[in-house]
C-alpha cells in the first residue's frame, strides 16, 4: 500500500481510539507486517516537531497528543491547569525507572537507599508509570514509563532523550588525591 495512505489510515484510527493503540492491533487491522506499520509510524513521529497533533510512540503503543510547544495556547483556550509538580522523591524514582525500565521495586530501592513504595504508588496513580506486562517472571513486578509521562514532561520522542552515559558523564565522587596529608 501507498505509505501516505497508510499513514492517513493510522492517524484516523488513533484519532477515534479511546486508549493507546498497540502496534499489534494495527497489524491485525491492516493485515500487514510489523515492519511496514513501524515504518509508517516513524514517518509520522518525524513530523512531530512542527505539527499541532503529534504521535507519541512508547513501548510499542501509540497515542496522539497535542504538541507541547503549544502548551500555553491550549492551556489558555481550555482553561486547563498544568499538572501538579513532581516531588523530589517522585523525580528520583522516575529517573531510575526512565533509564532502567523495566525495573523492579527492589532495584529502585537499592539505588535510592530508601523505601520507595509510596513514590511508586503515587506515580502509578498519576499514570506516569505502569506495571510492565511483559515480565518473564510474573512474581517479579516491573515498572516502566507511559505516554502520560511523555505528556507531562513535554517529551515528543523517547529516542531524543539524551542517553544515560552522556547525561551523567561529569558526575563523580570527590577523587582520590594522593599526598593530601
Amino acid at each position, binding site marked *: 500500500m501507498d505509505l501516505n495512505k497508510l499513514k492517513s489510515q493510522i492517524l484516523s484510527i488513533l*484519532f*477515534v*481510539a*479511546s486508549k493507546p493503540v498497540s502496534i499489534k492491533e494495527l497489524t491485525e487491522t491492516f493485515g500487514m507486517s510489523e515492519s511496514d506499520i513501524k515504518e509508517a509510524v516513524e514517518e509520522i513521529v518525524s513530523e512531530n516537531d512542527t505539527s499541532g497533533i*503529534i504521535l*507519541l510512540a512508547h513501548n510499542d503503543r501509540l*497515542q*496522539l*497528543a*497535542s*504538541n*507541547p*510547544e503549544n*502548551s*500555553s495556547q*491550549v*492551556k489558555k483556550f481550555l482553561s*486547563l491547569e*498544568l*499538572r501538579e*509538580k*513532581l516531588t*523530589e*522523591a517522585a*523525580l*528520583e524514582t*522516575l*529517573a*531510575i525507572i*526512565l*533509564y532502567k525500565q523495566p525495573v523492579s521495586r527492589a532495584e529502585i530501592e*537499592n*539505588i*535510592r*537507599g*530508601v*523505601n520507595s*513504595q509510596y513514590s511508586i*504508588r503515587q506515580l502509578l496513580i498519576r499514570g506516569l508509570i505502569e506495571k510492565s506486562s511483559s515480565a518473564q517472571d510474573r512474581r517479579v513486578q516491573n515498572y516502566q514509563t507511559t*505516554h502520560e509521562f*511523555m*505528556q*507531562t*514532561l*513535554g*517529551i*515528543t520522542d523517547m529516542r531524543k532523550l*539524551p542517553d*544515560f552515559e552522556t*547525561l*551523567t558523564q561529569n*558526575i*563523580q*565522587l*570527590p*577523587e*582520590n*588525591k594522593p599526598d*593530601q596529608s
Partner: protein
Amino acid sequence: MRIKLEQHQFEGPLDLLLQLIEDQQMDITALALSEVTEQFLNYVRSLQEKNPTNLADFLIIAAKLLVIKSKALLPNLDLGADEEEAAFDLTAQLLTYKKFREVAKFLKNLEARRKQSWSRETEFTDRVTFLPDPEVTVDVLAGTLGKLATELKEIVKLPEKVLEKVVSITEKINHIQALIGQKVETRLSELLKDASGKTDVIVTFLALLELTKQRILSLDQEEKFADIIIKKN
C-alpha cells in the same frame, strides 16, 4: 556553606551522606566516610521523632559506616567478609545514586519548561454497545475483589511492619540504664546478647554513645580487642 542538617529534609540516607561528604570537601576514602560517621549518627538520632518510618533505611547505612569506621580505627578487626564487602560497596552505591540524582535534575528542568501536551477526551457515547464478557460472572468478580482486599491489607500494614523493625533508641536507653542500675557495671557482649539483628545492634551502639555523651556512663576496655565494660558514673 554548611547546611543545618536538622532543618534539611533528606530524601534518604544516601542523600544525607553525599551532603556530608561534599561539605567536608574530602576525598572519598574510607577515612572520609569514617570522619562523617558521627554527624550521620547525630542526624539519625534526630530522625527518630521526625520520620520514624524511614529510620530503618538510615540504620542500614549507619551500620555500613560503623563497619568502615571500626576498620579505620582497628585495621586488624575481623568483621566477616560479607559485612566488609557490603560496607565498601558504599562508595559505588553513592556514585550510582549521585548519577540518578543528576537524571532527576534533568527531569526537573524538563518539567520547569512547563511544556505539556494533552490527549483528547474521545466522544464515544454513540459507540456504546452492550457487550458483556461471558467469562465474567459474579463469582469471578467477587474473587477479583477478594484478591484486591488482600493486597490492600498488606499495603496498609507495611508502615507498621517497618516501625516494628526499629527499636526506639529512647526505649533502649531506658533499658540500658535500668540494667546498669541493677548491676553497676556490665559488658557490651551482655547488652548485645539478645539483639535481634543488625538494626538492634546499631540502636544499642547509638544508645550507648548517647549515654556516654550525657556522662551517665563511661566505657572502658581492659585491653585491645577485649569486651567493652560499661560503668555508671
